[in-house]
Structures are given as C-alpha cells and as structure tokens.
C-alpha cells in the first residue's frame, strides 16, 4: 500500500472483467485461514487433565476473559453472545496485530471491511432483542419514552452503526498513514515507536468495537436483566454455601 492509497481496496492483485481481487480480500482470507488453522490445530487434542499444552492454556485464557467481560458488561449469561461478540473481537484483534508482518495491510484499514462488521452488529442487535423479548417487546422500545422519540431512536440506530464503522476504519487507517508518512520523513527508530502505538490502538479499538456491540445488544435485551441478576445472585449464594 502506497502513501497515496487511502485504503487497501485500491491495491488490485488480479482482475478479470468486473471481478477484481484486491488487497483487502486477500488479507481477509489470509486472516481467516490463519485463525481457522490455528484454532483447528490447537483444539485437535484437548485435555481435561491438570497438565495441558500451552496453546490450550492460551485459548482458555482468551475465551475465559471474553466470557468474564461479556458477563460484566451485559449482566447476563455470556453463552448466547460469546460466539458473535467473541468472533468480532478475535477477528479485529488478529487483523490489527498482524500488521507487524512486513508487507501486510490490515483489512480493517478499508472502509468496506469495517462497514461489513458494523452491519453485522446492526443486524445482530434486533435478532438478539427479538429472541429475548419477542417482536412486540423489542419494537416497543422504539416508542419509549414517548412516540415522538421514534424518529430519533431510528436515527440513533443508524448513526451508531456508521460511527462504529468509521471509528475502526479511521483509527487503523490513521495508524498506517502516520507510519507511512514518518517512514518518508524520519526513517530510523521513530516509525517503530509509532508502529508500537499503532498495535496498542489496534488492540484497544478491537476491544471497544466488541464492547460497544455488546452494549448495544445488552440495551436491546435489557428487560430480562433484573431476573437474571437475581438468578445469578442465588447461584452465587448457593456456590458460597456449598
């Protein structure tokens, strides 16, 4: 990706008629292959023993951490949301962190990738909301507190999707742009520091994207919250007593 390209969409590897394969697609496939192969290799031989391989330990820490975060943010049982929110987090994290590899361009630096992810969230929120509260219960929250708020709620839903997409795109793209500009201006040491900062922002942005997705889902399923809290409290008390 050169300095004047604003997104990896503009780097085209292969073209046949209207069908073109650009850098975003190639690197997304690369990341998918990497994650699937890695997960397959690690989960091929799991052990329930006390002794476990270090890779299994890594995966367990990641999954357990995600479950805890979802439980704390959503105040709900994490198992329903873990597949969706967890995959978002892992995909964006791997996309951003792999930028230490030379020649790699993060697919999240393209607005099409981030828009696709944001649209996934946009669709997942009503799906989880309807699964949890039913269609009428879900639609009711649009006319809350009054029916006059209906257009604002709808606009809010759309604008937060746009914000989700542009935020991730802007952060990753700005990191790469700054690294490229500094490479032209001060090519020794300084780009390395900015690259390290870029890794930090990449990780934080992945975290924030998934936290926001979880917050939106939690706000669509809020009616159940008190009941589940009570259940969890009872379970905790049981666990403490036994």
């Amino acid at each position, binding site marked *: 990706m050169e300095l004047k390209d604003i997104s990896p969409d503009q780097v085209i590897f292969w073209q046949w008629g209207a069908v073109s394969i650009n850098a975003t697609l190639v690197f997304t496939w690369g990341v998918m292959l990497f994650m699937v192969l890695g997960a397959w290799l690690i989960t091929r031989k799991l052990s329930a023993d006390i002794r476990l391989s270090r890779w299994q330990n890594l995966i367990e820490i990641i999954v357990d951490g995600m479950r805890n975060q979802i439980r704390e943010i959503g105040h709900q049982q994490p198992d329903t949301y873990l597949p969706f929110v967890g995959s978002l987090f892992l995909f964006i994290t791997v996309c951003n962190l792999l930028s230490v590899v030379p020649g790699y361009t993060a697919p999240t630096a393209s607005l099409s990738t981030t828009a696709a992810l944001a649209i996934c969230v946009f669709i997942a929120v009503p799906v989880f909301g309807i699964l949890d509260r039913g269609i009428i219960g879900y639609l009711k929250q649009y006319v809350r507190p009054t029916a006059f708020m209906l257009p604002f709620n709808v606009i809010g839903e759309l604008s937060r999707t746009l914000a989700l997409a542009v935020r991730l795109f802007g952060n990753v793209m700005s990191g790469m742009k700054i690294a490229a500009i500094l490479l032209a201006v001060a090519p020794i040491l300084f780009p390395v520091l900015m690259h390290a900062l870029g890794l930090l922002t990449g990780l934080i*942005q992945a975290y*924030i994207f998934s936290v926001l997705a979880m917050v939106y889902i939690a706000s669509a399923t809020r009616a159940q919250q008190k009941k589940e809290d009570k259940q969890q409290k009872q379970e905790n008390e049981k666990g403490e007593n036994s």
Partner: protein
Amino acid sequence: MDSISLIGIGSIITAGVTIGIGAIGPALGEGRAVAQALSSIAQQPDESNTITRTLFVGLAMIESTAIYCFVVSMILIFANPFWEYVIEKAGG
C-alpha cells in the same frame, strides 16, 4: 485562476483547518475525562477495573469525533472526488 489550482488550494487549506479545529474539542474532552477518572481511581482504588474499562470506552467515543475530522481531511488530500473529476476533464 483556473479550477485545478482553486480546488487544490481549497482542499489543502480545508484539510488543515478541519483536523486543526477538530482536534481541539476531543483534546479538551479527553483531558477532562482522564483527570476525572484518575481522581476517582485515587478515591476508590477497588473500582479501578470498572473505571478503567469505562474510561477506555468513553475515550474511544470522544476520540471518534477527532477521527471523523481526520478521515475527512485524508479524503480531501488523498481521495478528493472533485480533484479527480477536474483532472479527468483536463486530461480528456
């Protein structure tokens, strides 16, 4: 002045002004948020996990306004549709 230089001047100046002004507000907001979060951590160190998480999410939300300005200025410099239109007209 022909339209190429007019558009060039307009885009570059606007890009600089956009990111310049757009950085002021988020900078003030982030400063306030971090200061407030630090004093709350000093008061309640036990809650530092929750405070830090909320702080990061909030910072990202605040920062996104600056990021929008950055995206607009980047589009003005690197992917300006008017510039490309004019270049196309001049070339063809």
